[in-house]
């Protein structure tokens, strides 16, 4: 049975009517027209669907929408835009860290959560933070460089 569900997404309050057991991913993509979180496996194993729930990277593919409750959902659309990009977005483009790009939404979520905790992550911390994210095209090294670049941008921003 469909139910009315209220969500806080990218800073806005949204209300949808849907199956409360539907995965958050399906609601974001089909009800709210937010296409950045992507379907990859549906089993919490590839990271394509990651979103932030109160700042914590969360697989939206298997997360029932009714369980979100009061938590704040942030998707890549909420991280930044072409006009006002998040440092990780700028850095991914500057490093040309992408081939097909399908993995990049989830990667941004993992990276943004890491950068919110520390702006001087070690190589190993970056790799560990990106462990949930699969990339088949093999842009891993560029992504790692992009996270380092974004960290440097944030450090400079803080120093300025």
């Amino acid at each position, binding site marked *: 049975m469909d139910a009315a569900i209220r969500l806080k997404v990218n800073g806005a309050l949204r209300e949808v009517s*849907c*199956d409360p057991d*539907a*995965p958050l991913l*399906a609601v974001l*993509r*089909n009800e709210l*027209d*937010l*296409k*950045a979180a*992507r*379907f*990859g*496996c*549906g*089993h919490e*194993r*590839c990271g*394509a669907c990651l979103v932030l729930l109160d700042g914590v990277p969360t697989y939206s593919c298997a997360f029932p929408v009714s369980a979100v409750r009061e938590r704040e959902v942030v*998707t*890549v*659309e909420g991280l*930044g*835009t*072409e006009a006002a*990009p998040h440092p990780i*977005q700028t850095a*991914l*483009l500057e490093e*040309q860290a*992408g*081939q*097909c*790009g*399908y*993995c*990049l*939404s989830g990667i*941004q979520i993992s990276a943004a959560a890491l950068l919110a905790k520390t702006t001087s992550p070690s190589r*190993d911390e*970056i*790799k*560990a933070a*990106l*462990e949930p*994210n*699969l*990339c*088949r*095209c*093999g*842009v*891993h*090294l*560029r*992504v*790692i460089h992009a996270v380092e670049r974004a960290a440097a941008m944030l450090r400079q921003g803080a120093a300025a």
Partner: protein
Amino acid sequence: MIRNTLPQSLVDNPRLDQWIAFEPDRTVTLKTGKVEIGQGILTALRQIAAEELDLQPPQLKLLSGDTELTPAEAFTAGSLSVEIGGGAVRLVCAEVRARMLESAAAKLGTDAAELAVEAGEITRAGTSTGLDYWSLAGTIDLSAQATGSVPTKRPSDFRVVGRSEQRIDLPVKVFGGGFIHDMVLPGMLHARIVHRPWTGAQLSTPDEAVGRLAGPGVEFVRDGDFVAFVSPDETACAAALGRAWLRLEWTGGEPFAPEQSEAEWLLSLPTKDRQIGPDNAPAPDAAFRVEARYSRPYLAHASIGPSCALALFKDGRLDVWSHSQGVGPLGGSIARALGLAPGSVAVHHAQGAGCYGHNGADDVAMDAAIVALRRPGTPIRVLWMREDELSSSPFGAAMVTEIAAGCDADGRVLDWTLRVTSPTHVSRPGAHGEIHLLSAEALATPVPRPEGREFPDERGGGATRNSFALYDLPPQRIIHRLVPRLPIRTSALRGLGTLGNVFAIESAIDEIAERAGRDPVAYRLSIMSDPRARRVIERAAEMAAWNPDDEGGTGSGRGIAFSRYKNHAAYAAVVAEVEVDEEVRVKRLFAAVDAGLVINPDGAINQVEGGAIQAVSWATKEQVRFEDGRVATATWDVYPILRFPEVPEVEVQLVGDPNDPPLGIGEVALGPTAAAIGNAVAHALGVRVRNLPLSRDRVMAAAMEAG
């Protein structure tokens, strides 16, 4: 010199206006049949066009892969897009520029040689003439046939080509869009497909029971052994599919068996044999012989985004949106399979997740088409699930490559035979004149799967790709044993037979060097006279600070391997450094690549890095397995691929001469990387593992055997 022989793409699409259009908004549309599959081709083609037309790259808009709007260029595959698609664009653009200048010269009463172009403006002695491409467009006949005879720019004059350009398709993807998966058509219904668990399986569940599985709000479409669930609610559709996977009952056909997981199973099947090269016999005076059997397993494409397609059947016309590598052949196969007139099917390319060969893109388009025909007027979107992607896409073909070589005491090869046993590597829609669509086999009026046929040698071959070793060897005998009939569906995966053959040849070369007491780098150079090959081998060794005196056998090791992709595309040599305890960990890779003129160096390096990392995953982790009649590796848990913490450092250098023609680069790194890892593992362990993947089990078994 870059020769102006007519590329096939231009022979097939000779009119200038098939390639180019001047738009009222002062942009230029470049039309291409080649499609973006994550490799950056649109960016490279835009650079080529901007170069020859003297435009800024942003003045060009790309239109790609549409059966009605763009040139028909068959497939985007085989690392041929820059060589052939790019070659056509270069000639067309040079010709259009020359025609524009002639027209301007006539208007200005001057000589075309006096004129130049800057960002589309016609200039004389550095000042504007007031004329530009757009004001002149009406004066030249773009419906004329390209002659291909206008000289193209010399590399020394290049401004845009050879300069790293940012990928044009990346920003939209970084900001969360850009994929076929995101397309929404008004009134669209979602569908999920039940694919047969094994070849020829028959669905014994009656319709009423299938209907009960569908659940509320979900309808089902059944045609023979093909079942689709259709609903406006994607979640309900997926839930129905989940129930169907558990409950539907299948009989007959050819259930998969565990032994089929191993490449060596192929040796028990009937083959069609042929010989390439002369007869030979073991040299009677050989000081030693190296005779060994190597193999690679079935591999999954394992794209991160499952295949997706949309279809709409309306007023007798079928429109399909697809991330296929070949929109034209796909449309033709769908029309034939569904009994539609060829002209009534249009296929429009939309971007999918990374594509490394013939994956599920074509099959999901057929799935959408079948459902669309049953729901005229309603757009249908089909998304495959992870399980479909890992078990219903065609697999990269397993291969067994056996090498027998007799050598003198210094390791000079006296006789050389290579025998490769493999199913086909090419069963794309339209290949060999066949339909080749998965669900066409399941319909009540089925299109049966034809016998496997192999890709012709003159186009690089399939199982025989890179089976001829480029070293200075005596006449090589190659025996190709095609396995034409088997229940496993195989088709093109990045590099086709290259992975198996280069792994085998480069392993055997190391085995010979070892028996002769020679250093692997020095030995390779002693039997290689192609200067471009020597250069990449030398450079890779230099980059890795190769030490000939490193004895190995200590749990860490290094290895080198070389190949020239298809023996006529780019050259690559790779050095791998590994650590082996129970598992193989690849620490660093050094790759030297000669691709001649490189259009977009950063894009090319990205391709080589990515290919090298993918090859690490193939070589150390991946194998499709079968159990209980089904594909047993249908999720990431059981088909793991390389993750971030396991990725090695990769250093790439491009060492080609820009005066040499551009050579395809997308597949160049895979074979040599896998082979270099194999050689490094042998160096680390003192014992060789000859079957891919170099998994924990295989490494442990080899170490035990060596004691």
